[in-house]
């Protein structure tokens, strides 16, 4: 698929590093001034289970507000999960407190979306990158300084700038500083929370390439959260698609983009534009009707049934589908997928149609996203 796959180190790769088990994050909606009482909950994440394998990049895609970022934060315990477990190398993080949790934080880090908000504007670069070393008492003063210089060099920032403040750097450079901070404690697992969506298009490929280089050099495991499908396709080994707090489909990169089974994934992938005018003219995006329902009041049954062209009444709107392995390594949560057969969604002239056809017809969708991915690879090779 891409060059990184071929050269990734084989040692320890493939065993499970992080296990997410029935993770749920519900934000309470409260009422009252003196005595607050709960009148409801926003179910930002509503029962997620998946694993991240050592050395892989798991892409997590979905629309705005579907709970991607909340998932990333809940895994790192920045937001405490309402229920469920997060196992890191078999140890549950959700029950760790205080010092034990702080020690465990050395193993996992995060790269943030907004490089302008994620660096403390009152601290110098040396203080920002050196802080993890300081709080974990990893090196003495001069050792820290050397390590900070080394880290800055690793991410492509001139180490002589270490006494400068974040506002003296561009967005892309700040993101590099954020990456250096994440690397300081030598973590194994990094949650990348839309690390490039706030950056200029011309800078995105540089940061993606840097992330891939670092993964290769340090054997990192990524959970890569994004809403940009072609970027996720470029960097991920496996991809999970989220809709309204739940995972609807999870599969190997090539499988998911090649033959998406879940109706939502199919609609999502058909919306990726093609950078070829002729092909783009013939592309028909599946336009889903209506809006994403509010996570404060999710629909019963399958969360997607209110917009699903293939919805079957009396089934989809009553029973919540479990995420099950429909083919080896390919998970989907849909009642209509049976033994490898699945509803094929096509864009009609004016309305939507569900076409029951041969698997070959699914190829059109795959072709769409192939081209989109090439665009990024061309961009990144500059």
């Amino acid at each position, binding site marked *: 698929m891409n060059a990184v796959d071929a050269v990734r180190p084989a040692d320890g790769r493939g065993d499970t590093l992080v296990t997410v088990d029935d993770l749920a994050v519900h934000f309470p909606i409260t009422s009252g001034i003196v005595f*607050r009482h709960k009148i409801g909950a926003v179910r930002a994440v509503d029962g997620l289970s998946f694993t991240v394998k050592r050395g892989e990049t798991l892409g997590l895609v979905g629309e705005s507000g579907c709970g991607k970022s909340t998932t990333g934060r809940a895994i790192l315990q*920045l937001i405490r999960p309402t229920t469920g477990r997060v196992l890191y190398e078999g140890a549950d993080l959700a029950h760790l407190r205080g010092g034990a949790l702080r020690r465990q934080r050395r193993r996992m880090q995060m790269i943030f979306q907004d490089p302008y908000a994620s660096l403390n504007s009152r601290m110098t670069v040396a203080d920002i990158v050196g802080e993890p070393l300081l709080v974990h008492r990893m090196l003495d003063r001069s050792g820290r300084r050397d390590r900070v210089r080394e880290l800055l060099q690793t991410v492509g*920032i001139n180490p*002589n700038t270490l006494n400068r403040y974040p506002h*003296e750097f561009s967005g892309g450079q700040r993101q590099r500083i954020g990456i250096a901070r994440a690397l300081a404690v030598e973590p194994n697992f990094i949650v990348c929370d839309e690390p490039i969506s706030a950056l200029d298009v011309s800078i995105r490929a540089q940061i993606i390439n840097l992330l891939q280089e670092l993964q290769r050099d340090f054997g990192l495991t990524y959970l890569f959260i994004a809403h940009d499908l072609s970027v996720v396709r470029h960097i991920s080994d496996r991809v999970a698609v989220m809709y309204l707090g739940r995972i609807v489909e999870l599969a190997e990169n090539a499988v998911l983009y090649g033959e998406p089974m879940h109706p939502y994934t199919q609609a999502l992938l058909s919306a990726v534009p093609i950078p070829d005018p002729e092909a783009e003219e013939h592309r028909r995006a599946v336009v889903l009707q209506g809006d994403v329902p509010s996570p404060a009041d999710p629909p019963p049954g399958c969360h997607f049934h209110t917009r699903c062209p293939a919805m079957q009444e009396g089934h989809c709107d009553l029973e919540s589908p479990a995420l099950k392995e429909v083919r080896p390594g390919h998970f989907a949560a849909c009642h209509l997928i049976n033994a490898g057969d699945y509803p094929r969604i096509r864009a009609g002239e004016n309305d939507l149609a569900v076409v029951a056809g041969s698997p070959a017809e699914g190829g059109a969708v795959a072709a769409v996203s192939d081209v989109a991915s090439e665009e990024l690879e061309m961009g990144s090779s500059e």
Partner: protein
Amino acid sequence: MSGVLPPHDPYAAGEVASPAKATDVALGGGSTAPVGVDWSPDALLIEHRSTWKEVWIRFRRDKFAVGGLVVVILLILMAIFAPWLAPHDPTVQYDEGLTMQGMPVGSSSQFWLGTDTLGRDLLSRLIYGARVSLVIGVLANGFALVLGVIFGLTAGYFRGWIETLLMRMTDVMMAFPIYLFAIALVSVLKPSLWILVLVIGIVYWTPMTRVIHGEVLSIREKEFVDAARLTGCTNARLLYRHILPHLVAPVIVYISLGIATTILFESTLSYIGLGVQPPTPSWGQMISEGQPYYLSAPHLVIYPGLMIMITVLAFNLVGDGLRDAFDPQQRRR
């Protein structure tokens, strides 16, 4: 950024070396492969300076702020050395300080700024009055600040029941009419300078807590706080290194205004006789004493009024300058 560049402008070196995209190349943003890249230009290297030194370097560029600081220092010196500076004893009533009709006299070689209604030297009373105003202005605000920071930080950072408790308590305090509250407190306790500091501090603690609480609520949601928590910072370090520095600007603005309000508040209390007790002079009390005579002897009101104005203005200028100086982005202004 025009005209003369400051001596340590980070981009100056880069611009000379390569005009096109100088900043990107110079600071190292362009390359993804740092191996073999020559980082040699030491021009980018700047010395490490302590935060306070940085603040001072930025502060002294603001001429108005420096002017304000000079005035504040002069006022403080005046208050400290009042016994040596004042030409007369501020509490002695001079026979020659009153006309035959019992009216205050104007300026003369003996009484430079004239006398007050009891024949006391106005200049000496102004000089001694600085003690009361400055002590109250600075200490009462300091007291309010300490309470405000403790309560506001705790409530805003830890949230939960402790926030509800502290902030509802603040609301209850704010619901009291502040003058009535101060009058009640002063009349129960014996009025003195230190009681005044306490009372004014307690009265001004609530809005300070509100301001800090609100700021903390917004700062704690910023991504850099999440990032710091992820690096393993303890709560104490998070509060001290990541949240407190961002409170400096709003707090300083609030205090520079607060000092002015406090000096006037002391005047009000003195006016109704609950402030500093005579014969100790305070500017507010002098205005209230001189007010009935403002047509025949306007200097009784004008001079203490001028002193209050100068003091308030000086503190505001210093506050403005400090707020800007604490912001690293002001560096190249």
